[in-house]
């Protein structure tokens, strides 16, 4: 018997997978007593519910037509670039400061869509720098460095890793 919806198969897999993982992790959580339910009660109930839901989704995948999950429909370019841009912001804001980090993160995000027009983007980037600085540093007075102050932690980590390898 073939399934009719690969989207449902994948959704079921996610539910069952996360449910099973949660069940495994919470296996040694204290269950407490009926009078004072312990740490493990709700996690275990929810894990089983999630697994049950996943199984139902699987059954549905075999019974009813549904959308298929082609890899083509995935927005790979924005997925990767937006995620990388967010991570880049996280890794650099404390060390490189707001201005370089903004330019870095926004440019990576701009690479996420083929529609970016670079002249327009450059002007927009300058505007955003003014808005970002004006709003968060000048108006709200947030304690964020504006310019580079130290070497990013991840570079330090990579460097010591390379030294250790020698």
């Amino acid at each position, binding site marked *: 018997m073939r399934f009719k919806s690969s*989207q*449902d198969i*994948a*959704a079921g897999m*996610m*539910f069952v997978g*996360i*449910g099973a993982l949660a069940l495994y992790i*919470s296996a040694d*959580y204290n269950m*407490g*007593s*009926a*009078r*004072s*339910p312990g*740490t493990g009660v*709700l*996690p275990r109930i*929810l894990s089983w*519910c*999630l697994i049950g*839901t996943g199984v*139902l989704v699987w059954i*549905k995948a075999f019974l009813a037509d*549904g*959308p298929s*999950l082609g890899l083509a*429909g*995935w*927005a790979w*370019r*924005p*997925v990767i670039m*937006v*995620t990388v*841009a*967010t*991570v880049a*912001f*996280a890794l650099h*804001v404390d060390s490189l400061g*707001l201005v370089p980090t*903004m330019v870095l*993160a*926004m440019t990576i*995000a*701009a690479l*996420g*869509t083929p*529609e*970016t027009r670079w002249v327009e983007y450059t002007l*927009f980037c300058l505007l*955003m720098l003014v808005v*970002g600085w004006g709003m*968060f540093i000048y108006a*709200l007075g*947030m*304690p*964020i460095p504006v310019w580079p102050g130290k070497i990013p932690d991840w570079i330090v980590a990579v460097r010591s890793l390379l030294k250790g390898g020698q």
Partner: protein
Amino acid sequence: MDLGSILANLQLGLQACLLIKWIPDPFFGVLIPIPINLFWCLMGAVIGTAIGVLPGVGPVATMALLLPVTYFLTPEGALIMLAGIYYGSQYGGSTTAILVNLPGEASSVVTALDGYQMARQGRAGPALAIAALGSFFAGTVATVAIVLAAPPLTKLAQQFTPADYCSLMILGLVFAIVLARGSVINAIGAIFLGMLLGLVGTDVNTGNARFTFGIQDLFDGIGFVPVAMGVFGIAEIIANMTNVDRRDLVSSKVSGLWPTREDFRRSIAPVLRGTFLGGLLGILPGGGAILASFSSYSVEKKLSKTPEKFGTGMIEGVAGPESANNAAAQTSFIPMLTLGIPSNAVMAMMIGGMMVHGIVPGPQIMEQKPGLFWGMIVSMWIGNLMLVVLNLPLIGIWVRMLLVPYRLLAIAILFFCCIGVYSLNNSANEVLIIAIFGLFGYVLIRLGCEPAPLLMGFLLGPMMEVYMRRAMLISRGDPWVFVISPLSAMFLLIAALMLLFILLPTIRKSREKAFQEA
């Protein structure tokens, strides 16, 4: 409930709204009186209209984005502004629907059907005017409904036992499933998933760590703001960046705003029906503006003598849904304000806004913070009044905003998400969390799971555990307490019936049909 106490409450609210703060001007330090809460109300209305006009930016994402900024405001200012964003977006959404045939908001999908046709016939002005005036009427009625319903409901809620609360939350989650768009089973799964995510961190009762993987940053749990920003902000950017939207603006000039006498005559009944229907659907957990506008459209179509003409520019198809979505946007505050239970993702954001300020949502707010409670309600009516002014004469400015392409908007949203979440605790690690949840949210969208039920589960899961433990402690470990208490039993019974109904094939079909119609 007598007239005197109603007026006293309104007066209290008005005082909170008109609070004057003396602020030094930036150049000479001269103190200037500024009605600070009215100012935030206006800001909320302006931001709401703006994001309502822009397709691809919804009120939930915007509220998530601004939650960290509200930390800098007073609780009153913060909640008044957040509320303004929600009902403001209902006004703005209709503008794009009518002029560009793109729903600025999900709740104005049906407005585009007849509104855009009216615009093509050169009657954009009357369509916009009826939408705004209908919304204003609905907003006024809904505000009165909140004023009348809040005190008795709060009294009732104060008598709830922990078991009642626990069952009420289950009922709320079941409603969220029934009214979710898309697959029912996936919505159920998303709720369980959200509840599990809500449990991450230290268990408040026992002090044991759960699902922390030994990571220090997870000991306090995953914050509501990073999760909401991830699944609603980042994930939506990713999903929308691929959809290149074409915007065929009918005309940037709208002339002849005023509807004819005939337009008014035809709109009165739909506005009244839409207000009533929307007001009712808004109170239901899981309900809100989207459901209300869809239902109103199908009701108007059914009642019309010429249903076949719907979709060709019938003013009834604009007047009904637009009133309904605004009424529902407003009345969905009732369960949030009186019970402390969010009825949809937007209300979850409001509760998030309260938690940022350390306010515990629940029936005690009305007595403990009457200024905040009534100030917020009165501000809704004032905000609606501002919105009519903002929307009708200034329509040209809003339309011009559509010239900002999404490729730039997406980058701006991304930046505000990053810096907003960073500013919460000056922690770069929380920015990593939104990256993870952005990715996760996109996977959910691709797998056919709505992120809204996940967020509801995330918020309600830990609350439910607290009430469940209290109920078990009081009953000395007897689980029958959930059935013996009449209120709790009633909530559970309704929840069970709803679940049963939705799983029955015939009713499921008609539900799907109801969503497809319109």
